[in-house]
């Protein structure tokens, strides 16, 4: 192999490495709802949204999800510290919010939850919806 060709190959290899380094330091690309749910929500709320006994409420209740569509993003972002009733059971253990999730990620999680357990939904959440909601949380 000629010297020039080796230089080109090595050079492009180094360029790719540098490119990856630079890319990683950019804002991380949004991940899909299922993966985000698995990483952030499933350990408490269960992979089937089943919750845990009378301690952690289930997410697979379409009545609750429909009634709380407006507040859903607020709960993910800021947590919940009041009593709620889901499917006839009252839960009053507090939940911590996820300050590290951005609007796109919250939208992806919300869409995953509602697609699986929300029953009939008219439109998907967009990140603009989420941003607007988060400005008005109580």
């Amino acid at each position, binding site marked *: *192999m000629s010297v020039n060709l080796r230089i080109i190959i090595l050079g492009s290899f180094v360029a790719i490495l540098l490119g990856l380094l630079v890319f990683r330091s950019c804002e991380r690309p949004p991940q899909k709802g299922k993966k985000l749910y698995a990483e952030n929500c499933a*350990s408490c709320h269960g992979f089937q949204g089943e919750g*845990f*006994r*009378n301690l*952690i409420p289930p997410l697979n209740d379409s009545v609750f999800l429909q009634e709380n569509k407006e507040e859903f993003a607020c709960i993910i972002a800021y947590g919940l510290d009041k009593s709620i009733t889901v499917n006839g059971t009252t839960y009053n253990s*507090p939940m*911590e919010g996820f300050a590290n999730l951005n609007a796109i990620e919250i939208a992806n999680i919300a869409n995953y939850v509602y697609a699986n357990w929300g029953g009939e939904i008219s439109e998907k959440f967009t990140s603009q919806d989420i941003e607007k909601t988060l400005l008005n949380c109580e």
Partner: protein
Amino acid sequence: MNRVIFTCAFFASIFLLPGCIEHTHQKEQLKIYGQQEVLVKDSMGQEVIDTVTLHIDSFNLINQDSQLVTAHTFKNKVYVVDFFFTHCPTICPIMTKNMVKIYDHFESNNQVAFLSHTIDLKNDSVPQLKAYANKVGISSKRWHMATPLNKEALNFLAAQYMVSAEEDPNSPGGFMHSGAFILMDQQHRIRGYYDGTVTHDADQLILDIDLLLKETNER
């Protein structure tokens, strides 16, 4: 050139692959924690090295059924200890969930017990602990959710178990505490630490409890 690429890929895969696989493993014996070697004088006045072992066997707690819980409660038992508070918004729900997994696994075994200390002495009264225990569906026969009688007792216990458990207004819920599950043997010695927020650690703890039971029953 091809050989170089192939060799690099081969070695890379060898180093990278083990990191991907999580597995529990059967141990031969569990370490005893809290042992110290000290210099003492023997009967002849000679300086020798002696081993002092920590036994956490002096405590008084009240559990969710208003019963007094002491080391005697765990006589001849292998037990799992942790620290929590009922109003905890972050790690406690998953810790409770993982502890329940272990509790359910040893359902018919009275030699295995569980002790959860609350660190919120102000709010976690006996009725509050009882309400929490009912929400989770566990019985004080095998799982004691108990409160130390005062702050000094709580601090002393946390120090003995070598975990953190303290008030911290900057932490969610107002307390900062360790998510550790601590495995105790029949002689009240510490035999293992596990991350209560990681379900995989709970699986390992189940294996280690079986090992301890075997050790206890073979004596």
